[in-house]
């Protein structure tokens, strides 16, 4: 097992009677991307602020890259942070901004200059280093913020809503950078976001928070498994093949097939009781059904698995917790 680089143990932060973070524990290893999920007010930002030493915990402890929570300066030396809704000095250029932060980490002017050029290129802003930040788009500012979070070549990077307000292309770019940071730099990334499909793609571990508490943590598969969600899928085939597709799927006793109202070419397939189908798991039952359809020579126009997604697990768990 790789080295543990982020560990929170019973971390708690109270503001008077309000529990912003309540007994939060989780850990992450080197090179891992940890998705910190939760509805608004769940305690994600406070958890990040505790781990980055901006706030002091009411109780509990944590360690970052081997440094205990009491060694705040050492922790700050080895972390990179992109805070939520981070502001930028609009009159500075991107290059000046990065050079200033690099020098705050103890680099000389010369080192800061060469590093800023390198980081601007790394986040695709090499043409914009001499331009004032005031003319940067939101996506460019976010990428600049990520570059700033990397000036000290951190062991652990905290990114709080890095894709907030970005268009799909901007989101893809930022997620691409995050993936590369974890892989190429072997850094642990703690990512707070609402983009659940992207979390499924990039995160190796997920921690779902609600009202300051950890609802569930583990790999994406484990979290979905614990949610015990009804597994279903939608299958779209050409209209004249619908009946044949239904016959092919009926071979599997654990599957229930229904036509979606108002959409005659769309079938809803549900695993009646996960595990009861002929295959070992709901996903395998779905796979077997899909294989039978394609083996019958029926063109599949769309096959969308539901209930096996992180978003479904997230919604189910957070709504259950509220109820």
């Amino acid at each position, binding site marked *: 097992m790789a080295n543990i680089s982020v560990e929170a143990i019973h971390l708690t932060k109270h503001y008077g009677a309000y529990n912003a973070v309540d007994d939060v524990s989780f850990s992450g290893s080197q090179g891992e991307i940890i998705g910190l999920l939760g509805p608004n007010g769940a305690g994600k930002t406070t958890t990040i602020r505790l781990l980055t030493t901006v706030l002091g915990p009411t109780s509990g402890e944590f360690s970052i890259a081997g440094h205990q929570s009491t060694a705040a300066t050492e922790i700050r030396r080895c972390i990179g942070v992109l805070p939520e809704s981070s502001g930028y000095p609009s009159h500075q250029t991107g290059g000046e901004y990065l050079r200033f932060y690099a020098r705050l980490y*103890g680099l000389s002017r010369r080192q*800061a200059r060469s590093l800023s050029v390198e980081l601007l290129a790394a*986040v695709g802003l090499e043409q914009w280093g001499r331009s004032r930040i005031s003319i940067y788009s939101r996506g460019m500012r976010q990428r600049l913020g990520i570059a700033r979070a990397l000036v000290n070549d951190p062991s652990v990077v905290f990114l709080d809503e890095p894709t907030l307000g970005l268009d799909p292309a901007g989101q893809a770019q930022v997620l691409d950078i995050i993936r590369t940071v974890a892989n190429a730099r072997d850094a642990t990334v703690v990512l707070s976001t609402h983009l659940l499909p992207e979390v499924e793609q990039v995160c190796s571990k997920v921690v779902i928070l609600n009202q300051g508490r950890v609802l569930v943590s583990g790999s994406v598969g484990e979290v979905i498994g614990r949610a015990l969600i009804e597994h279903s899928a939608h299958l779209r085939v050409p209209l004249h093949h619908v009946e044949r597709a239904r016959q092919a799927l009926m071979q599997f006793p654990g599957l229930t097939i229904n036509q979606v109202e108002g959409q005659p070419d769309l079938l809803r397939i549900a695993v009646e009781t996960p595990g009861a189908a002929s295959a070992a798991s709901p996903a395998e039952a779905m796979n077997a059904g899909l294989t039978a359809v394609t083996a019958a020579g029926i063109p599949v126009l769309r096959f969308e698995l539901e209930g096996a997604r992180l978003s479904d697990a997230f919604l189910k768990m957070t709504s259950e917790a509220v109820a």
Partner: protein
Amino acid sequence: MTLQVAPPAVGTRQDVQAGEGQPGWLVVAQQECRDLWTSGRGLILLFLFSVLLSAVTYLTSTNQALNFLEQRESVNLVLQFAVAVGVLATLVVGADGISGERERGTLETLLVTPVARRSIIVGKLIAALTLWFATFGVSIPYLWVLGREVGILGPALALGFGVGTLLAVGLGSIGLLISAACNSNKTSIAASIFLLLILFAPTQLPSGLPQGWFFEVLLRANPVASGLAYISALLVEGHAWTQDLSYLITPLLTAIIAGSALIFAGPQLVRLTRGVNAG
């Protein structure tokens, strides 16, 4: 577009650990100075100061020509104006120091760097003081024009610089403390200007008013009024340097107490607003 955030070519992690660059307070001070002067904020304040100082100098020199004012009094008046406005500018810039960062959302990124919070506020105080030094520099030619014939230019400059620097350190520190304690930048700046008006009000009272012991206590308790009274005593009344040194006790104590409070208590005040953006 595919981006490649490869490991840095320079040994950044080792360089960060070695920390061979300049100390944090100096880096912050340099950047704050650059922000103050290249953003145009400092230059605008300096330009406004020059316009006001020109008007004041013109009025005092015409009064002097009409024999309403002695040359010594003219120098004293312009010097007091320069000190007052220079200190005001320092206070206002200090008052924007922390609350402004909070409002602009740039404080958190500073707080997660290894630079101590004390270094951040010391750097900001140094940058705010540059405005005082600049305003004082601008006032030198005006003082030269008014005071060159009576031979008090040297003492006037030394006095103005010494007393003004004491007041600027004290009030700049108070401005930063107010800024650290306020959530809103507007509140911080308004409170600072209100404080300065209270401190300057006694200096604007007509000199013909009866001045009893209570007035004397108020004068000596007020760092601005007592500092300016010391300047007056030397320049206008021709007292010796040592004769009225007691007037400098309050400005000196203000600089020491406010400066120490900033250095020792400031780091506890430099923090994010409770609950802001709590996730």
